[in-house]
């Protein structure tokens, strides 16, 4: 299957993969909240079964993990991309607040299956039951057999990570593959997920996260609590005080872009491309570029990247089908007659 087909499966149908790139720790004990509150820059205002996206920072304020905290009653789950489970565990222990902290790595006992697409909810309902249908974004559901269904997609489409206990794995995967063909289920690569993430302007630690930037330059201040202390807070605040010079900005380019390419305005370099993907949906390349702060703004025409015309824009640049597919009104079987709007936005085209 080509990358293009994989992306189309995510954008229009259902897609799955085994998500070994996500590591999961269960955090419990009296020190669980205080420890997570210390290591996670995000304000952890969470109700039971709610999720909060955060990042994890080194002491110098640079991002080393894209993480999500889930509240499971009085315990927590930490889902992270970036570090290994062992690295994450030892880092968390290093920053423990109080002694009563239990960390359980779920990578030995569970597998993560990842499911995406505007119709993923319908397939999952057939596998896990109808409660999947009503799940709000950034929440999880406890399913029979101990599987947790986490809705935290990073593609702009309905997206779920299933934390499946090993004993259930064959059954859940079996059902997924058995029901899958009815929704044209396709197996996709991590590359395809990351492609869609960039098109929808989700942060990816494997890409723009690899440049040693802080949340200030990455446009991720919304994942930082303005009030509290956290690992890396001092460095982030010092950087803010001394003045942030660049910000990640979405650039649409009319031709192939190489990573590291200069972004030129009237012949002058105003920044560099950190990562880029060819979006066949848009017929252009979508690039995440680190631009001078005064120009890190959408709507600037007349840029040049790798010799091609380019412009800044407001992401996300996809008019996701999932925005228009309602589990209450739609079904895969009637998708042709439902008359959904095109995947491209008028303004972006």
């Amino acid at each position: 299957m080509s990358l293009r087909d994989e992306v189309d499966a995510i954008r229009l149908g259902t897609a799955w993969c085994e998500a070994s790139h996500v590591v999961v720790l269960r955090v419990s004990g009296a020190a669980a909240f205080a420890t997570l509150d210390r290591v996670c820059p995000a304000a952890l205002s969470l109700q039971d079964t709610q999720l909060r996206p955060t990042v994890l920072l080194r002491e110098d304020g640079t991002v080393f993990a894209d993480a999500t905290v889930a509240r499971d009653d009085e315990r927590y789950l930490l889902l992270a991309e970036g570090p290994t489970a062992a690295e994450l565990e030892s880092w968390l222990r290093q920053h423990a607040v109080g002694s009563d902290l239990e960390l359980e790595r779920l990578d030995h006992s569970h597998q993560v299956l990842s499911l995406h697409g505007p119709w993923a909810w319908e397939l999952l309902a057939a596998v896990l039951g109808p409660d999947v249908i009503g799940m709000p974004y950034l929440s999880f559901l406890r399913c029979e057999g101990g599987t947790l269904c986490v809705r935290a997609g990073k593609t702009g489409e309905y997206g779920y990570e299933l934390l499946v206990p090993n004993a259930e794995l064959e059954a859940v995967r079996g059902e997924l593959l058995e029901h899958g063909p009815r929704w044209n289920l396709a197996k996709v690569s991590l590359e395809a997920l990351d492609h869609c993430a960039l098109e929808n302007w989700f942060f990816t630690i494997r890409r723009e996260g690899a440049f040693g930037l802080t949340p200030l330059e990455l446009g991720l201040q919304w994942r930082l609590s303005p009030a509290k202390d956290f690992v890396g807070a001092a460095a982030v605040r010092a950087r803010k005080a001394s003045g942030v010079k660049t910000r990640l900005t979405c650039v649409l380019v009319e031709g192939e872009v190489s990573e590291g390419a200069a972004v030129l305005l009237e012949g002058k370099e105003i920044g560099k491309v950190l990562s880029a993907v060819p979006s066949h949906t848009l017929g252009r390349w979508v690039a995440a570029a680190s631009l001078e702060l005064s120009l890190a703004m959408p709507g600037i025409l007349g840029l040049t990247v790798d010799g091609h015309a380019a412009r800044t824009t407001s992401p996300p640049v996809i008019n996701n089908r999932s925005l228009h597919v309602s589990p209450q009104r739609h079904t895969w079987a009637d998708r042709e007659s439902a008359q959904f709007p095109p995947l491209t936005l008028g303004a972006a085209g």
Partner: protein
Amino acid sequence: MNPALMAYLEHRTRLLSRVRRVLIEDLHVQREPDAIDPDAPLFGTGLGLDSVDAVELIVCLETEFAFRLDDAALARSSMRTVNSLVDLVLRKQGGAYVAA
């Protein structure tokens, strides 16, 4: 830098700060203006807005910028990030969405 671009950047910066002010004063987002990233998602805990806030946000922008938004599809596609709100305002102000 050409004057049209400078004018656009200045205009857009002013609009961005007004949109941020609406978010802070009317929608009670508990952040300093410059801690509201322009590309931050509005919902799904990005800035902490909730479905109940959706219509309120539109009404407050309509009041602040004196326009009416009757196009539900446009409203939906504009309610994604702070920048997409600024785009909406620009569009309503006469389509000066892009500059040279």
